[in-house]
């Protein structure tokens, strides 16, 4: 375990540096913008002296390093500034919108795992077969479709033509705000409240965007699983297991898959981080009230505090997931220890 302790210590040093770098990047982006933050708040009709006073109050007359120090101090206090659009603190907004994104991304992740992993395993077991080729082509198309096109076509087919799926949004109008908010995850909240109609409605609304979002991860997960499995299946211990007369299923799942599971955890963590990114466009098309939609709506309104706050939060989640993946890998794989 000593190596994993050392890895943890290394992470304790490098993660704050990375986070500081993230903050510096968002700070600098906020400073290069051509929109004057004072004018954005006061409007261009405010008298000269009010503008000058506000500039001093906001600390914008200070040198950049001091402004950055102030920015970091505010971040440490969880203060991301106020959103011009909602007039709430950005931190509050993010806390309000993030659960919807987590619900969407987690569901997509589950779908992607349940389909992607078996696809990858079977493609590897029957390498070169028709199934293998179908999976390879599927993976390539999965990587090449723009997510907004897939989302729109899915709406066209499943909502407009077939009528199988409900439309956009997170719930029908009748069910909106009917369930007390506990976790912020609508499906879980309606289950807690025992409101099964609401639960069914939430699930139906969730299925389509989650399916679209999952599509891309299915491709990635299947491709990585296939590559890992091919590697594992060529090991000599597999030949030994075959020679001992073990069943094919036992060899594939217990011996080969058991050995790649650790590496797969890393892939899954990275996939989850990628899903948060894919959620930005998916949420926009499906009017899903999550962090991604918050980000794009703020973008169109030039609400920079909100944009930078959301960017920083997504970056933070990204860093933490990467770190987790790395640590799990180090702890579970004896070869790295």
């Amino acid at each position, binding site marked *: 375990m000593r190596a994993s302790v050392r890895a943890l210590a290394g992470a304790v040093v*490098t993660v704050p*540096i*990375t986070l500081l*770098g*993230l903050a*510096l*990047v*968002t700070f600098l*982006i*906020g400073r*290069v*913008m*051509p929109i004057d933050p004072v004018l954005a708040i006061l409007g261009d009709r405010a008298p000269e002296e009010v503008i000058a006073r506000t500039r001093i109050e906001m600390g914008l007359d200070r040198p950049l390093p001091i402004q950055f120090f102030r920015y970091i101090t505010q971040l440490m206090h969880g203060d991301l500034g106020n959103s011009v659009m909602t007039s709430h603190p950005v931190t509050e907004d993010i806390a309000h919108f993030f659960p919807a994104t987590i619900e969407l991304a987690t569901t997509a992740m589950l779908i992607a795992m349940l389909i992607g992993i078996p696809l990858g395993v079977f493609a590897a077991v029957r390498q070169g077969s028709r199934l293998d080729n179908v999976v390879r082509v599927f993976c*390539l*198309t999965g*990587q*090449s*479709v*723009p*997510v*907004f*096109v897939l989302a*729109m*076509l899915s*709406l*066209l087919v499943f909502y*407009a033509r077939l009528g199988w799926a409900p439309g956009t949004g997170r719930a029908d109008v009748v069910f909106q705000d009917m369930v007390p908010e506990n976790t912020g995850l609508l499906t879980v909240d309606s289950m807690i409240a025992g409101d099964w109609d609401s639960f069914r409605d939430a699930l139906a609304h969730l299925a389509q965007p989650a399916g679209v979002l999952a599509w891309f991860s299915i491709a990635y997960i299947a491709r990585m699983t296939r590559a890992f499995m091919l590697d594992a299946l060529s090991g000599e211990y597999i030949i030994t297991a075959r020679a001992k007369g073990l069943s094919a299923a036992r060899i594939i799942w217990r011996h080969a898959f058991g050995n790649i599971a650790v590496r797969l955890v890393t892939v899954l963590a990275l996939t989850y*981080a*990628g899903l*948060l*990114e894919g959620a*930005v*466009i998916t949420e*926009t098309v499906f009017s899903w009230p999550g962090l991604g939609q918050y*980000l*794009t709506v703020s*973008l*169109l309104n*030039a609400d*920079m505090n909100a*944009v*930078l706050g*959301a*960017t920083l939060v*997504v*970056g933070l989640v*990204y*860093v933490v997931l*990467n770190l987790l993946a790395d640590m799990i890998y180090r702890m579970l794989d004896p070869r790295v220890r």
Partner: protein
Amino acid sequence: MVSGITRDWLLSDSPASRSQAAWGRRYRLWLQFRRHGLAMAGLCVIVFVVVVSALAPVLATQNPGAQDLAARLAPPSAAHWLGTDELGRDLFSRLVYGGRITLGMVLAVVVLVAPFGLAVGCVAGYAGGIADKVLMRVTDIFLAFPRLVLALAFVAAMKPGVESAVFAIALTAWPPYARLARAETLTFRNTDFVAAVRLTGASASRIVLRHIAPLCLSSLIVRVTLDMSSIVLTAAGLGFLGMGAQPPSPEWGAMIASARRFLLDEWWVPTIPGLAIFVVSLAFNLLGDGLRDVLDPKQS
């Protein structure tokens, strides 16, 4: 000399000059590449799109900006091969001109990013020590941001438009190249041939520029080609969100965004540019896969 370039000259076992050896090697790679059906298909599509974009003024049947409100949202016909959009503009002509924007953005990003990533990676890998630590830490910070989100924030801070979009994508695209070039440089740094060059008195910059960087090129080319597909998607995504090319411009993502509300009835209007994005992106992926098998066999 020109008449000397034959198959035999290229495949000669005992090349008489450096250029003959170099061209022979390229020819052999080409022969290997030609066997990949899917990669060849990708290459053909890319060549086709490049030619069509280059000849856009000749091929377009109408002015891509010309509005004809009497013929808005018309289905495909002889006059409008792919129909018209919400302002009666000819979709086929817009699609053809849109290829110029997409390919132009891809090219601009690659030209900005590949040399920069290569330089950062080679310098970090060859210099080692503090320079390596600092450069790689900066690389990690940019890698820590999800690409689209950072690009969005960056474009929002500047002015939405093609130039900002290119710059924003470039800002998020260089770190993987730096990582890759550094890893390659590390494998060459302590080889005998580099030591030999150093003994002859070559400067560090000469070693990096003339001897190490060229060896990193093949894996860089593979990575760039595979990346082009995601650049196409990111550029279209920015256009779709209103942060890339701006509306009158026939950029494919922006075309989809403005035609989105007609999805339910005139579904082909947003679908056709979507298909174009998909085909180009897929072609880059196929091409990259084939190139990887040929140029970088240890990766596949």
